[in-house]
């Protein structure tokens, strides 16, 4: 089965083949995979070399000239290294772009901290007007990419090597299970482990691949249907990134929130496999199950 990165390549090729106003900007990463597209569309597959500030600024310049840019590299280099370019050259200029990252929080754990970006969504969330998609399956990634291209919005699509077995292509917060003791919201690649962790628990399980804008109405509806204001948020990036959104959605009601995600107060200096990092951050199914049970029981 194709990975999300494979799907990014094939979907971007389809977009380039059909929309003459789209260009993709690269900084060496994934340039080889898009090599044939570059031959078919000279001038619309632009590899700036290992220059991430220019990567984002060139995307902004393309947008100013009326071209819809897809801007892509690994998540730490796209969002963290070039953050002022995202803030000023896209946001402050008020032009649109589709930023597509690959690498998630720790998809390449053996590469170490330099290739990890658990803070990317929190950083993007500090800027106004961005849509943020965190697909949990390659088919969701394809759908979200295709939907991001028309128009001139600013969109961040966070692709990952972690994925769920099945796609969920609905919009907003999708209800996968209905229970009575609480609401567990799984974001993107967290879904399958949340489903496993809550097996046999009397909780509502929601899923979303779109965290900004946040579906506050959907959360309130689910809380009402469940009859409990205990909410567990399970995000594949910094823990608590969406806590304020949940609190705002439920501001009229006393409520409790448990926010699970990548640890905020510790830099994890291990290499190893993704599973090793899941254990450290408490994001494996067993750890999630323990955290949810403890939260609901107290």
């Amino acid at each position: 089965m194709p990975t999300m990165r494979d799907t990014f390549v094939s979907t971007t090729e389809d977009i380039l083949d059909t929309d003459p106003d789209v260009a993709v900007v690269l900084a060496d990463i994934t340039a080889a995979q898009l090599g044939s597209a570059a031959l078919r569309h000279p001038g619309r597959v632009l590899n700036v070399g290992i220059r991430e500030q220019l990567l984002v600024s060139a995307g902004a310049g393309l947008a100013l000239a009326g071209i819809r840019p897809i801007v892509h590299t690994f998540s730490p280099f796209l969002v963290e290294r070039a953050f002022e370019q995202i803030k000023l050259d896209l946001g402050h200029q008020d032009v649109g772009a589709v930023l597509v990252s690959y690498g998630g929080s720790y998809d390449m754990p053996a590469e170490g901290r330099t290739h990890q970006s658990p803070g990317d969504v929190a950083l993007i969330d500090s800027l106004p007007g961005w849509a943020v998609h965190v697909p949990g399956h390659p088919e969701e990634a394809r759908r979200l990419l295709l939907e991001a291209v028309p128009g001139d919005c600013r969109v961040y699509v966070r692709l990952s090597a972690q994925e769920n077995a099945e796609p969920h292509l609905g919009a907003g917060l999708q209800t996968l299970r209905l229970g009575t003791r609480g609401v567990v919201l799984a974001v993107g690649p967290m879904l399958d482990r949340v489903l496993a962790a809550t097996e046999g628990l009397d909780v509502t399980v929601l899923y979303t691949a779109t965290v900004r804008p946040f579906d506050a109405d959907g959360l309130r509806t689910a809380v009402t249907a469940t009859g409990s204001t205990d909410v567990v948020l399970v995000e594949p990036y910094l823990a608590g990134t969406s806590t304020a959104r949940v609190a705002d959605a439920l501001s009229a009601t006393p409520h409790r929130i448990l926010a699970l995600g990548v640890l905020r107060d510790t830099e994890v200096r291990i290499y190893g496999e993704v599973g090793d990092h899941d254990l450290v951050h408490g994001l494996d199914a067993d750890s999630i199950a323990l955290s949810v049970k403890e939260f609901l029981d107290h």
Partner: protein
Amino acid sequence: MTTATLPGRADLPRLIALMTGDDKHQAAAESTVDVLWVLYDRVLDITPETFREPGRDRFLLSKGHGPMAYYAVLTAKGFLDESELADWSSARSRLGHHPDRRRAPGVEISSGSLGHGLPIAVGTVLGLRIRGFGDAKVVTLVGDAELDEGSNHEAIALAGRLGLEQLTTVVVDNSSATHGWPGGIARRFAVEGWETRTVSGRDHEALYEAFTAPHPDRPLAVVATVEQKTTGEPKG
């Protein structure tokens, strides 16, 4: 006579003097005034009537601080009204110490943080090429101290390698870079494949010739030297 309706070069000092709220930027404003006038008066095809045309020439002020000369030239060319200059930088005004493209007509980019205009200009040229506007000029103005920002050097290298003939960078050099540029600024562009011309930033004919003489298949860097800056921060 249409000359009665728009101010000319001789009016620029008066227009600049209307904006008195930012004395410390005065030197920076003056350093760019002749370059800006030559560009808007003789080099670039940009008017208030054509400013929304997709194939227009574009001027990107990267060195956004000290924008009084810029606002004065935009006023002289009919983008802004003289009556709004005196109130600049107030909460009521759309003209700030750094220009905002979403507010001020004629302003192509919002600038202020240094090192953004040239990289954006590279992308703009690449976009204009895709859209078939292969003749539109894109000119960006940077300061010699602004070249300290590494983002410029990412853009200089790529623009040279791609041979972006539509792109012109004018470096207004008032010798304000803290660590200087031994061997000269033009060398930084030339080694990457740019055509370079170093002229007096006060000599209108020399500037016009530098901006308009052909430079086929290469981007153009015009180093416009002006008097050394004598006041303190911020630099340009």
